[in-house]
């Protein structure tokens, strides 16, 4: 049985689903950040797969590289915010960080 595009897409969808689940359900901000990472990687997987099977060139891999860089930057910013929240609230529970509501 040879690997087809559908295998990649199913794995990507699963990854996206897990990531989304993590983002929605977890209270821990780091876990939420990890969920976001999963979602991004699911997208990366889809991009590479479509680049290999549909376009037949490397444009999909180039997109992925950009996304990885972006994800790294985003993780850095996200962790910095979480650190700041921690310093202010002494925890990183997202349900507690409601000061922007006001």
């Amino acid at each position, binding site marked *: 049985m040879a690997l087809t595009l559908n295998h990649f897409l199913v794995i990507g969808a699963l990854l996206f689903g897990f990531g989304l689940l993590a983002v*929605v359900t977890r209270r821990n901000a780091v876990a939420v950040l990890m969920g976001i990472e999963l979602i991004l990687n699911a997208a990366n997987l889809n991009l590479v797969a479509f680049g290999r099977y549909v376009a037949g060139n490397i444009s999909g891999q180039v997109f992925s590289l950009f996304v990885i860089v972006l994800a790294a930057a985003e993780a850095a910013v996200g962790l910095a915010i979480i650190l700041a929240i921690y310093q202010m609230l002494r925890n990183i529970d997202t*349900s507690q960080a409601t000061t922007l*509501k006001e």
Partner: protein
Amino acid sequence: MEHAAAHAATELTPLVTHAASYLWLIPFFPLVGAFINATLGVRLQRRFGKGLVHSIGIGAMAMSFIVACAAFVQLVGLDSEHRFLQDTLWNIFTAGKVTVDLGFALDPLSMMMTLIITFIGMLIHVFSTGYMADEPSYWRFFAYLNLFVFSMLLLVMGDNFVLMFFGWEGVGLCSYLLIAFWYTDPQKAAAGMKAFVTNRFGDFGFILGLFLLFWALGGVWQKAPDGKLTYVENDPHAETALAAAHGEGHDAEYVKIGPTLNFRELRDQVVIKSTGVAEKLKSQKMFGFGLLAMVGILFFVGAMGKSAQLPLHVWLPDAMAGPTPVSALIHAATMVTAGVYMVARLNFIFALSPTAMGWVAFIGALTALFAASIGFFQYDIKKVLAYSTVSQLGFMFIGVGVGAYWAGAYHLLTHAFFKATLFLGSGSVILGCHHEQDMRKMGGLGKLMPVTKWTYLIACWAIAGFPWASGFYSKDEILWKAFSQEGMAFLGIAAPHLGQIIYFMGIVAATGTSFYMFRSYYMTFTGEYRGGHGHADGHADGHGHGNDAHGHAHVPHESPRSITLVLVALATGAVLAAVIGVPMAWTGHAPLLEQWLEPTLPAVVLFAEYAHSTEFLFQFIGVSAGVIGWAFARALYKDNKSQVPAQLLSRWKGAWNVVYNKYFVDELYQATVLRGSVGLARGLSWFDKHIIDAMVNLAGAVTRIFANIDGAIDRYLVDGAVNFVAGATLSAGRVMRRVQTGRIQTYLYGALVGAIALVLFNFLIR
């Protein structure tokens, strides 16, 4: 009389007027004087002294007198039929057919009045400088006096009823102000109010008469066959008809017909026969009573108030509470004669109604007799003079009532002189005796006050009706005319002998006049001085006078020059006034004053014809009446020796009491009018408190109930609805707030659910 016949024979024509643009100055000067003294007087007096204050007052009077003299000269220069000066300043208002101008007119009658007012007024101003020398509110006195003169001049010079009424009310106001001049004394303030209220009562009659006359001139009420009254207006083309009737059609024949307030227009349309106005007026009836009689009687009610005739005479004796110059000027010489002037001015109206004539003459005679008898027993010198004034005014009304208008006016003139002399003489006496007015505390003043004594005696001589002093001529002419008047009626019933009854009453009153005047003279000036200890009363100290040398404060003394000079001037006038009234029986031609006044008195009055010898007989009776009065007074009161008065007094105590208390007229008023009005006021007050207030309170209670219901509706229904909306919004908000958690995950849940729903929906649609 021949003159009446002459009137009847020649057709009267409209008055010709001559413009005299300076007439307004005559009343203007006193007005300015009053204004200056009223507004700046208190400051002027404080800074420059009393001299400036009375200079303003007297100066205004003098200027006014000079202008009046100028007008007199111009009037004399004209033909006797053309003596009418007119000065119309501007139109006050025009409403329909009524036109009222601010216009002044001088005809011989108002000229005579103007000269009396300005001349005697000026002398009395001079007198006041001496009499009021110690008065702190000197400026107020002069302001009032000038204001009075202004109003009086307006009354006599105004060419229409409106100005006359304005002056009429103005003099009433000034009279009130001056009687109550010393207003801190409640009695004097009350006297002022009494005068004002009584006058107002008379004025009501005056204005009713005016309305009635005005209305009557407009047209006629006619009874239709079905008994309905319909109003028929006077023919508006009557004016042109008149011009046509005269044929030649010159402008002078143009006469305005219809309602008017102007004396000249009224005179023209009533006097000229071809207008038919006089006939129309005569034929009008109201409630079966002649309309003209009603007009005359109502006008005379006004005169009764102003000129203190029975039964409205009560205010005048009380008016003596005012300063003596006021009594002389207002309550003897000028204001109280306004009623006489008014009747003489409207002679052509009064002469048309025998009832009105009889009414005026009869009330006059009754008053003359009644007041003279009260004068017999008064002890207050000013009260004697006050009742004498009432009595003399009665004589004037006999004159103007019986149709001897010029004689009434002549008595007005002579009375102005001799009564002013008497009042000022009494003022001089009162001043000399340190504000003592009781004649029992005087006596023997003749030696101490010679000028006052002689002038007083001359005036007594004049008023008592002895020949060669003015009173004789005027009084005899009046009584003689009363006797020969046979055409009067009493309340609609022809009474040919009314004139003779009036003559009889008049001659008795004349005897009484002579008696009480000489009584006051003898009590005051002869015998021994009985005062001297009465000076201690507080009244005298309240406004004592400046010449009070304290070394001999209890001895009476002659008054200062300003007073004696005025007395001499007035006494001279009282004698000289005789010249213009010497009767026809003596000289063969009509008296000068009658000739002078003739154009103003167009009324046609017929008198019975008697020979001159009869007239001489009546003059003899008149003189003897005076002599009898004088002889009695001399016997009883000269030198205070006779014991007869005291004996008579003890014998006739009851009768004396009635007369001394003025026949209890004041008490009668107290019992009827005053108690009646107080009772009415009480009743109305009760009605107000119990009926009106109850109704008001009921209305209030009902309103309150409705207000409570309304309030409840407002509170529970309207507010409830509003609050419900607010509450619903609030709770909805409370519910909705839950959604806004602030947690990103919740929103993501939402987004996720939405996305899933969309996807599922997409499949389902497919």
